């Protein structure tokens, strides 16, 4: 670890401030970004190893708090997060098995914490500033929370009847029970946020008026305009917008669906539409996707549960037109040819000429994405008339007017949106006061050798218990499908985490080059190197390995390969291997830091 460090109070809710070093050295940030892949992959930078470890130790409340301090709604996210962390989990690497069910552990922390669990938050004194946040989806709620905690007086405006945005109106109840959502929203609002529902900005109140009433205005109005296929027949009766479909259901209505339903789209909304259609009485439901099932971005669990309910996924087909006279009768598709995966992560798809065929349908639900709805306001707009905000500063061209979340970027995931809301809040607070309130740094602390046992690496991934198929549609089609881990299962899953925040390092001045550590390592994580190439920021960029003993200049633990089994520490005859806990943490800067 580098020397660009300082000692301070912890800021952590779970440990007293002792023997802790905080670093803001870029090399240390680089280290964490490479070596703690789950936390780096999380848009909110949730400290995954820490909360999994807390749960393992039986501290469910602490595990919940370690989530909540950065992602605010662990009970919600533990159910519906897109789980970018699991895609990067080291346990999922080729020869290591399957990724840890990180999200399910998060939910277990929420489920099993004490019913009277006390929420602790760092709160700053009142700022004497008024901020209006427009939109109470994940971005708006997160921004409102952080601004309120910072000391601003926050008013949250919501156009719909209840707060939550897409969480409430876009995600079906069988995936996200409303009592969980309501509780976590309440936990945010009770910091003193004034919520006003049924207020549509642009119609009921103008942005100009808000700018005159408040010190800053943040637009976090989400994406509520459905994208259209722009193919012939799209406006035939029986063709529904996916977003309208799920919103109607969430509002207590039951849209009519035919026996045969085709859902066009590949995201969570498409899956929600398909599963909802089944609950509304459809007999034969298929999700039609342009690429392959393996290219889908929804979680494996979601795909599995959807297929278990009898919904089919038809891959490698692209819709050309909706066919029918007075109403929809089917969709004409072309087969598609999958090409390379683009930098966006999506696969390039080419329709194959001459491969057209018609799939019969009584209802077609189009769920191919959404866009932001333009709100009348001053300031620079994009080509669709939507207010533009800077992706980093969230500032618009109008002073004191900001934009964030999906409204600013287009549709993203809940966790991305929530993270964007928090960042926007920090920027607004800084602009209003000239002070920083929170800071990310690397906390380094001596750690004992891990007590993980090698046998834990072979524990199978614990599958989420779910409601039996025959009980899903009747008697209550809104029943939550995933039941949640019981404590024992959560414990087993928590054991699978390698705890990548542990950093193993060989002190070369003590090493006697006996190579016992290399012999004991279960994979090629300890390397004989001739050279360590360091980047401009001081971070290790490359280890140049050598098999020629004469060229060996060091024995180095490659923490990006290490699975933290601790075998090397146990066999080292000269105790030259140290273990430290290296974490990316967000700290409240007491007294307010200089901007």
């Amino acid at each position, binding site marked *: 670890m580098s020397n660009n460090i300082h000692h301070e109070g912890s800021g952590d809710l779970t440990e007293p401030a002792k023997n802790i070093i905080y670093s803001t050295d870029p090399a240390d940030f680089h280290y964490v970004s490479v070596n703690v892949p789950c936390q780096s992959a999380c848009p909110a930078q949730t400290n995954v190893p820490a909360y999994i470890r807390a749960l393992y130790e039986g501290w469910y409340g602490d595990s919940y708090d370690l989530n909540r301090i950065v992602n605010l709604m662990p009970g919600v996210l533990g159910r519906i997060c897109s789980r970018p962390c699991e895609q990067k989990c080291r346990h999922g690497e*080729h*020869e290591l098995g399957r990724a840890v069910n990180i999200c399910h552990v998060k939910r277990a922390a929420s489920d099993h914490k004490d019913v009277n669990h006390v929420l602790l938050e760092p709160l700053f004194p009142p700022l004497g500033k008024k901020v209006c946040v427009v939109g109470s989806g994940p971005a708006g709620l997160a921004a409102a929370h952080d601004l309120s905690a910072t000391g601003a007086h926050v008013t949250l405006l919501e156009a719909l009847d209840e707060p939550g945005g897409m969480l409430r109106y876009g995600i079906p109840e069988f995936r996200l029970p409303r009592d969980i959502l309501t509780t976590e929203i309440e936990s945010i609002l009770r910091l003193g946020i004034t919520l006003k529902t049924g207020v549509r900005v642009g119609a009921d109140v103008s942005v100009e008026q808000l700018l005159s009433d408040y010190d800053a205005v943040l637009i976090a109005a989400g994406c509520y305009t459905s994208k259209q296929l722009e193919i012939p027949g799209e406006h035939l009766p029986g063709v529904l917008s996916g977003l309208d479909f799920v919103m109607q259901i969430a509002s207590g209505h039951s849209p009519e669906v035919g026996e045969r339903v085709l859902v066009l789209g590949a995201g969570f909304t498409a899956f929600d539409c398909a599963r909802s259609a089944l609950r509304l009485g459809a007999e034969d439901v298929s999700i039609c996707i342009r*690429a*392959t*099932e*393996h*290219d889908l971005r929804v979680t494996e669990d979601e795909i*599995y549960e959807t*297929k*278990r*309910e*009898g919904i*089919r996924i038809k*891959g*490698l087909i692209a819709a050309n037109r909706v066919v029918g006279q007075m109403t929809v009768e089917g969709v004409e598709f072309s*087969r598609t*040819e*999958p*090409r*390379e*995966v683009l930098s966006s992560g999506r*696969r390039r798809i080419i329709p*194959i000429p*001459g*491969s*057209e*065929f018609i799939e019969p349908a009584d209802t077609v639900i189009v769920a191919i994405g959404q866009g932001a709805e333009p709100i009348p306001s001053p300031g620079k707009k994009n080509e669709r008339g939507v207010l533009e905000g800077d992706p980093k500063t969230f500032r618009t061209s109008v002073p004191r007017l900001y934009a964030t979340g999906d409204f600013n970027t287009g549709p993203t995931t809940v966790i991305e949106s929530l993270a964007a809301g928090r960042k926007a809040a920090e920027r607004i607070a800084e602009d209003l006061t000239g002070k920083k309130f929170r800071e990310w740094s690397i906390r380094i602390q001596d750690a004992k050798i891990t007590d993980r046992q090698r046998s834990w690496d072979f524990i199978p991934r614990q599958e989420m218990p779910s409601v039996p*198929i*025959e009980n899903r549609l009747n008697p209550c089609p809104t029943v939550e499908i995933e039941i949640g881990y019981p404590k024992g299962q959560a414990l087993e899953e928590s054991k699978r985490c390698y705890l990548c925040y542990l950093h193993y390092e060989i002190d070369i001045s003590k090493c006697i080059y006996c190579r016992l550590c290399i012999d004991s390592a279960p*994979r*090629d994580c300890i390397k004989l190197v001739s050279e360590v190439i360091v980047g401009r920021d001081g971070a290790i960029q490359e280890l140049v390995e050598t098999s020629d003993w004469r060229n060996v200049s060091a024995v180095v633990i490659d923490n990006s390969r290490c699975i933290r089994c601790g075998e090397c520490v146990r066999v080292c005859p000269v105790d030259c291997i140290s273990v430290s806990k290296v974490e990316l943490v967000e700290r409240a800067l007491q007294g307010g830091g200089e901007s």
Partner: protein
Amino acid sequence: MTARHVVIIGNGPAANEAAISLRTQAPDARITIISKEPIRYYKPHLLPDLIAGKVSEQDLYVNPLEFYKENDIRLRLGQEVVHVSFATNEVVMEHKEVVRFDGLIIATGGKPRIPEPLQVFEDLMLSLKTLSDAKVWKERLRWVDSVLIVGGDLTSLSFTKAVLSLGKKVYFILHGDSFWPVRFNEELSSEVSQRLSDRGVEVISCRKILRLVMASEDSVEVETDGRKLRVGAIGAFFGLVPDVKFLARSGLAIERGIVVDEFLRTRFEGVYAAGDCAQVYHPKLRDYWVSIGYRNARNLGRVAALNLLGGQESAETAPAGIFQLDDISVNTSWWTEF
């Protein structure tokens, strides 16, 4: 291409036909077959006959080990590939060895498919894909007098014949989703039902299986949306899914199989897929096609090898609904052969 080192992953009919075609066409090529199964190449389509007692295990094996030595084909059995890097043309083995290749033919075949709604009952169902599966069936059929077959793939019907020949009672549940690989419709359903009934099979009409429960050591209770019955064993015959988990995140497009064009090319230079694990787009059919059966697998293996060496041979594809039924050299609907 001048194939210097061709690696073939798999050891079934497609893989072996590819190997011998390569040897014939490229005498100097280095050829390596890698297979996770620690067993010699055998004819999987004869497994129902093995169960029926019509052939012995020895009859199943195709080539003696000397065959590979004589043809200078390196056979690496019991070794599993866990990753393929197409950027560096390397195959990574489970035991950490890295094998470089100039050409690669993926012919890993398929593994039994269990539809998601039935996966909770997986432990109560037997499949028939490998020799060891056949041995399990042989043993089970010694003790039970009835079998329920769920599904409707190619193997299911030859297996039904084998079970009937042993004097056992056969129940059959046909289901649209499980009738693989053809697209199911009412006409097909009634035709297949009729043929099964003519043979003495009791075809059960139901929309879904609600519950399977182990009733005793040698009986399973089945509850469908229409009736309950007790059988000695349940066979799951829903076709195959490609056995290509190791290729996840490799960049290959995988749907019902590895997606290839009519020349069996993947989108990576020098990389081909053949046999049950290949999903071929064929312009004549104007559709994707997963070819099944011993003969088809061998043909695809041969085509992949020839095209890897620079050929331009199109994979033969029968018209939709028509199959080459294993060693029966007729183009016909396979269920009519039942």
